[in-house]
């Protein structure tokens, strides 16, 4: 049987090592030239609670996980019962026969179940249950006719340097063990063949890694942050890589320190960034306001998770859209951009530093757990596309002797010249109180008014430079769909299914969330008969913004999901169809 779009879920308990198996599988599919998207469904604990990791491999470009599973590989029977309803009726379940499992035939449907003593094999052959991970990989390698050489090469790459030859050999042994065991049970008629394509110039990368890499290439040499799901991976990746490029990563005592250290480093001339999620961003808001007031460029990668409060730290939501835009006291400009895809995480982060330097304000890269912590195959990044533009950063020769340097000079575009401290003629004051052009404190009403206007002017100036939305579909379609962030995958698939059903749509995926691109939005919305606004939150935060600021001539339909799961393939299709043909 040939499968062009396959989803495998590996399920067990936290601590089982599911991430290991899934990541290897993702890499195998990637090397086979397939498009890959992974989906972590992990609890926020370390050991014990049920976890699942789904790897989707497809011949065609995909932008998100599938909520339908073709193969469920489970380490315990509870996992089978928990996830069986997601497995296609004619799908497969591989489960550990060490546990006796009885599945009611009404539940089982046509699904085929293979019982394999995975844990027992691991214990008997290695004395350690942890080898169940590579044994199940062996089982899958037979099931999916995966090339042994390819897997053994990836195992070697993974372990040889870090753990040595012995561990490589043990894993290869486990792989064979699983494969041979599978041969006994999974007959040829059940075997699945995946297409093979050329794996050229592609990467398998998470959004967090892509943002970290984008930052480094853009010249970021300073990072300070505080560990938080699902953004820590940005700090961890940079902590490994920055020192070789003369950069520094500081793990601070809290997010307040993190943003202020970024502020100090950026003021002194380094491109600097922090990364966080909702709770950390809340703490950062006073630093955000300071950077806004004093016009110091800072970049924050904001990887949303489910809130409020500690919420669900390892799950996906878009509930912080408004916080990302309106956080911080007082009127000050800040820019919020949002990668449409994991690939976009790289390029937009590269751009973010230019925006921060050019417009001298906080730039927030707003994304979500679904992108931050999941892998996707992307086209190899083109580093030459990252240009470095430091805006109005001026050099010593442009400074006039014996004249005070006007760091906050009122200009047409609202942007003033900036110097890196240490220049004799550039001495100035960075003042969190209201200040005049020199930077020194001045709280007179006229200055307050002028300086507020000057700062806010920068948003207007920025509008033309900020990332444009991604449009797709039929321009003449009467149905429009608007989204941002991780709804990209579901929206694209919905568009495809609707075309098959004879419904034309045009989609618009926003990549700049603040300042809102009102004219572009107005044009799009007003060209449609009906426009759906899709988002992962309860309150309809994007819908709220569009209604208040775009003031569209037609009624917008808001589709919201807030149970932490992404839209499944037909979910959006059904809702849209219901709206159109009630």
């Amino acid at each position, binding site marked *: 049987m040939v499968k062009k779009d396959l989803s495998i879920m590996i399920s067990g308990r936290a601590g089982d090592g599911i991430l290991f198996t899934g990541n290897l599988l993702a890499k195998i599919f990637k090397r086979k030239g397939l498009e890959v998207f992974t989906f972590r469904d992990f609890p926020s604990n370390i050991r014990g609670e049920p976890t699942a990791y789904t790897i989707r491999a497809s011949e065609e470009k995909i932008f998100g996980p599938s909520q339908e599973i073709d193969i469920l590989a489970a380490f315990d029977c509870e996992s089978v019962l928990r996830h069986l309803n997601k497995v296609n009726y004619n799908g497969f379940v591989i489960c550990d026969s060490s546990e006796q499992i009885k599945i009611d035939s009404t539940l089982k449907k046509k699904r085929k179940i293979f019982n394999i003593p995975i844990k027992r094999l691991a214990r008997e052959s290695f004395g350690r249950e942890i080898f169940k991970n590579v044994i199940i990989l062996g089982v899958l390698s037979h099931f999916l006719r995966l090339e042994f050489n390819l897997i053994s090469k990836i195992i070697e790459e993974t372990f040889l340097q870090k753990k040595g030859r012995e561990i490589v050999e043990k894993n290869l042994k486990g792989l064979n063990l699983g494969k041979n065991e599978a041969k006994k049970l999974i007959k040829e008629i059940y075997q699945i063949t995946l297409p093979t394509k050329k794996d050229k110039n592609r990467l398998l990368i998470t959004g967090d890694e892509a943002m970290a890499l984008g930052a480094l290439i853009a010249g970021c040499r300073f990072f*300070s942050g505080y560990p938080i799901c699902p953004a820590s991976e940005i700090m961890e990746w940079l902590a490994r890589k920055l020192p070789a490029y003369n950069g520094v990563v500081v793990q601070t005592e809290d997010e307040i*320190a993190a943003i202020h*250290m970024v502020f100090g*480093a950026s003021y*002194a001339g380094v491109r600097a960034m922090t990364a966080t999620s909702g709770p950390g961003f809340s703490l950062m808001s006073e630093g955000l306001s300071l950077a806004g007031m*004093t016009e110091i460029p800072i970049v924050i990668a904001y990887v949303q998770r489910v809130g409020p409060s500690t919420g669900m730290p390892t799950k996906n939501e878009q509930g912080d859209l408004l916080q990302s835009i309106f956080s911080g006291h007082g009127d000050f400009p800040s820019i919020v951009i949002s990668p449409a895809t994991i690939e976009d995480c790289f390029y937009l982060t590269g751009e973010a530093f230019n925006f921060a330097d050019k417009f001298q304000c906080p730039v927030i890269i707003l994304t979500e757990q679904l992108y931050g912590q999941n892998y996707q195959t992307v086209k190899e990044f083109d580093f030459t596309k990252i240009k470095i533009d430091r805006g109005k950063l001026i050099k010593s020769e442009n400074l006039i002797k014996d004249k005070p340097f006007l760091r906050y000079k009122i200009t047409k575009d609202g942007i003033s010249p900036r110097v890196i401290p*240490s220049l004799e003629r*550039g001495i100035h004051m*960075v003042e*969190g109180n209201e200040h005049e052009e020199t930077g020194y404190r001045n709280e007179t009403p006229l200055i307050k008014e002028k300086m507020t206007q000057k700062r806010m002017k920068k948003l207007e100036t920025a509008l033309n430079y900020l990332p444009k939305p991604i449009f797709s579909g039929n321009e003449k379609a009467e149905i429009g769909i608007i989204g941002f962030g991780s709804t990209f995958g579901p929206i694209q698939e919905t568009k495809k299914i609707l075309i098959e059903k004879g419904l034309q749509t045009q989609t618009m995926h926003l990549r700049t969330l603040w300042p809102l691109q009102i004219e572009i939005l107005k044009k799009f919305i007003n060209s449609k008969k009906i426009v759906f606004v899709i988002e992962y939150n309860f309150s309809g935060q994007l819908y709220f913004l569009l209604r208040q600021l775009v003031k569209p001539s037609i009624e917008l339909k808001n589709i919201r999901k807030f149970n932490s799961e992404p839209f499944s393939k037909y979910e959006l299709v059904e809702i849209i169809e219901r709206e159109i043909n009630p």
Partner: protein
Amino acid sequence: MKTINKYKLFEPTWCPGCGNYGILNALMRSALELNLEPHKIVIVSGIGCSGRINNYFKCYGIHGTHGRPLPIASGVKLANPELSVFAVSGDGDAYSIGMSHFLHTVRRNPDIVYLVVNNQVFALTRGQASPTSNLGFISVSTPYGTKEYPIDGIKLALAAGGTFIARGFSGNIPQLVRLIKKAIKHRGFSFIDILSPCRVHNKVQDYNWYRKNIINLDEDPSYDFGNKQKAWERINTFEKIPTGLIYVEEKPCWEDLILGKEKAMSHLDLKPEKYDYNPLLKEFY
């Protein structure tokens, strides 16, 4: 120019008799005697009366957020270690809202001079009790006297691994100049808690009170500021408040441990063609 005038900016507007005048003067004299150029100095101040110092001392200045001058100063110093970086806080800034940053900066040991102007009261916000106010201190926020015991930044710094710990008094400028100069020369985090009377909001601890209640360790030849055990004993002897150099230790500062070999990060050429970025992709193939 060989006078402190080269550091002068606006006329200070602190209240008459405020300890901040003496501190500002001591800082200017120290900078002058050590030949620090205004454009190579960054002073990061917190929020409070002491935070106004940036308006009176000509150099690169940051007047940021309440309690956060140390993280800001740390960022500046790591970005460009060639700058002389000072942070100035009040006792509210340092020991109340900024306490966590204080302890963590002490343990990181960046080469920063930290002056805490300790007047045992929130003066700018008009006289509320602070964490260093004595038990029973009557203020607008503690009309029946504080019911909390005060904390001592010196003890905290010693416990957190401080490498330069001193206490000054704004009524003794020559000593303060000596301490600040030593602090500037010390390679590491140099912390000076400066007892500084607020004549408006703290009527209890005035200049006379301090003169009666402090002792000067610098005048005690038997005191060994290199002995941590002795320092701990000394600051826990309650008869009088010790001032002077309390503890000094040489150990690698943060920049020595964390920074790369190149010059200051702030002056790196960031053009992508300057770097070989391709090895970074290997793990993603």
